[in-house]
């Protein structure tokens, strides 16, 4: 299996709202791919369709040459962070990861390892409802990394992180990319992506408006931010 993400001709409407309009792009392994665009551009929708939560009206979305629902133990192929608030407030962080691990037949030891890695070891046995925004984010990242997947799909991973968290997240993503994984990161933080992403997909109104190496963007527009502002205008 090749660690790629392939979105092709994806269209999606919610009632009268057009969320995606023939969205097409490809994410290759070995680098971080930034996924940027204004609010409501369709980034989250694309990601939800990629992992089979929403159904596209037209087009195909493949992870590692396959549809998400064809994957066995899917979290060992694709790690996903969509909404870090999606936890049961009464369940501890550790137990949240534990049931996820059991569903993928991952040994429980991996859970404690990950809690250490994302810096939640101390809070692991506290109820998730009491977690701060950043702690939830870390728990969400832990869930995405649980299956050591070759493909990562992360929606606004920097949300709520403290400055040290930013550094940690940056390193984490870079390292995974260097290991030859495909990493798709939706974010509004142009400064972060400029250093981190090797490639950028810019979307607006549910369509791709630019799809190029970060370096090319920077060369042409000066910075990723100016490129973005120019492109989505």
């Amino acid at each position, binding site marked *: 299996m090749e660690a790629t993400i392939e979105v092709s001709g994806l269209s999606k409407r919610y009632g009268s709202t057009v969320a995606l309009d023939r969205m097409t792009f490809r994410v290759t392994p070995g680098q971080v791919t930034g996924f940027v665009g204004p609010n409501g551009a369709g980034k989250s929708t694309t990601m*939800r369709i990629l*992992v089979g939560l929403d159904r596209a009206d037209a087009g195909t979305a493949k992870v590692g040459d396959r549809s998400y629902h064809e994957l066995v133990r899917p979290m060992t192929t694709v790690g996903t962070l*969509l909404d870090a608030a*999606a936890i*049961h407030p009464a369940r*501890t962080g550790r137990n949240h990861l534990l*049931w*996820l691990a059991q569903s*993928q037949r991952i040994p429980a030891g991996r859970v404690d390892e990950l809690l250490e890695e994302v810096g939640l070891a101390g809070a692991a046995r506290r109820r998730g409802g009491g977690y701060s925004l950043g702690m939830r984010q870390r728990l969400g990242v832990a869930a995405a990394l649980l299956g050591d997947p070759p493909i990562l799909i992360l929606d606004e991973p920097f949300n709520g992180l403290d400055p040290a968290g930013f550094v940690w997240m940056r390193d984490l993503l870079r390292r995974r990319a260097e290991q030859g994984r495909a990493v798709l990161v939706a974010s509004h933080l142009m400064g972060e992506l400029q250093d981190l992403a090797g490639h950028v997909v810019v979307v607006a109104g549910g369509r791709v408006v630019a799809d190029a190496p970060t370096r090319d963007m920077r060369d042409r527009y000066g910075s990723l931010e100016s490129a973005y502002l120019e492109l989505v205008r």
Partner: protein
Amino acid sequence: MIRAELTKLRTVRGWLFGLTAAVVLFVGSALLVAAGSHMSCGDQACPAPPVGPDGQAVEDHFGFAHRTLAGDGSLTAHVRDFSGIITYPPPRHDQIVEGLVPWAKAGLVIKDGTRPGSPYAAVMLTGSHGVRMQHDYVHDRAGGPTGARWLRLTRTGASVTAYASLDGKTWTTVGTVEMSGPAEIGFLIASPGDITVTENGLGGTSVQSRFTQASAVFDQITSTAGGEWRYDEVGGGGPGADWEKYHRPAGLEASAGRLTLTGSGDLAPVSGMAAVPYLAGTVPALLAVLIVAVLFITSEFRRGLIRTTLLASPARGHVLAAKAAVIGGVTFTVVLVAVVAARAWSTTVFRANGNIVLPTGALTDLRLAVGTAALLAVTAVLAYGLGVLLRRGLPAILLAVLLTVVPYLLATTSLLPPGAGEWLLRVTPAAGFAVQQTFPAYGHVLLPYTPAQGYFPLAPLAGLAIAAAWALGLLVLAVLRFRRADV
């Protein structure tokens, strides 16, 4: 996937609390009701009813004029007269009237002695159900020509055959049953109490039984057994009712080839007496289980956790089925433990209060325990299915209560006319409560076999099947709707 869902269920403290509450409510209600039930018979313990050959508690009380039957033999007689009185019948309950209750009995019987509860086979004329052959309290069959007044009972080897005739010449077989060993053969008279049901407000009912007496004159008697006709009031305690003391005592009068036998009582299974109330906590426990089952799924929708679940297991039908299996399986296990505990504990309390514990039989006990666990498990799955469909906790809980607990309560209290109540217990998921019926309804024992008295319109397994069909139907509907939906 099952294991992950089990972990989910046990790692939310509120749900563990809810399931524990179900057990506590179940056992606690049983204890409370048992502690509140008292029975006293003067200073001593109440006598337990005799137990019949098939293991049920039975009433074995009748007037018996008998001779000893050594081996084969037969008895033939004509019922010349059959009449009786009923004390204070409805509607006004203010006078004693002449007449027979429907299951008053006059006829011939072969019985293994006069010990209450011993086996017998009998052919009899009844108050309004014609000629019957009955044996061993629970078996009853109609037969013979309409209007027959001639009865015959013969024993050949190990079989006893009953006949009836219009003229004493042409005989019709009513039935044959197996019965061997030494026996007494003779005449029987019995007249069960007149049963009335009154509503006592607040939707409850009470059942009353009033004294009746029957009298039969037998003539043209042919008996192969010789000797005197000896009289015994089987299972009787002497004159009890005022009527017997001041008007007409029970007993036998013999004159010129005629026997006149007068008496009360019945040969029948005991029903209508309360069993150990160990299932009293079913509804409170059901409510607790129902809430947990709904929240088990709706909390996932509420927090968006369902997306994480589907990321882990994209096969949506499987996910929903696994969750249903977990909530159903856990409920079954927990309730089974609760039933066993409630039964053991409340039986002790019940007995200590002087109550008689009627034997129910191992199979019935097993059915009540496993059936109750299954009933709650099925209802939990149904509530969970509603949770998937509605995706919101409160509406799903309310609808589940409306479909299960409400029909049950309406039907078992007399808030609805009995017909409507029984209809509810046929078509709604509350039909599953039929699995909790302790004693069977007997066609030859006149009692109010209503839900309020613990009798259900459907057979235990049929009722449970209706509830299961509801749960399965809702689950299938939920899966179909959920399978293609955006979450």
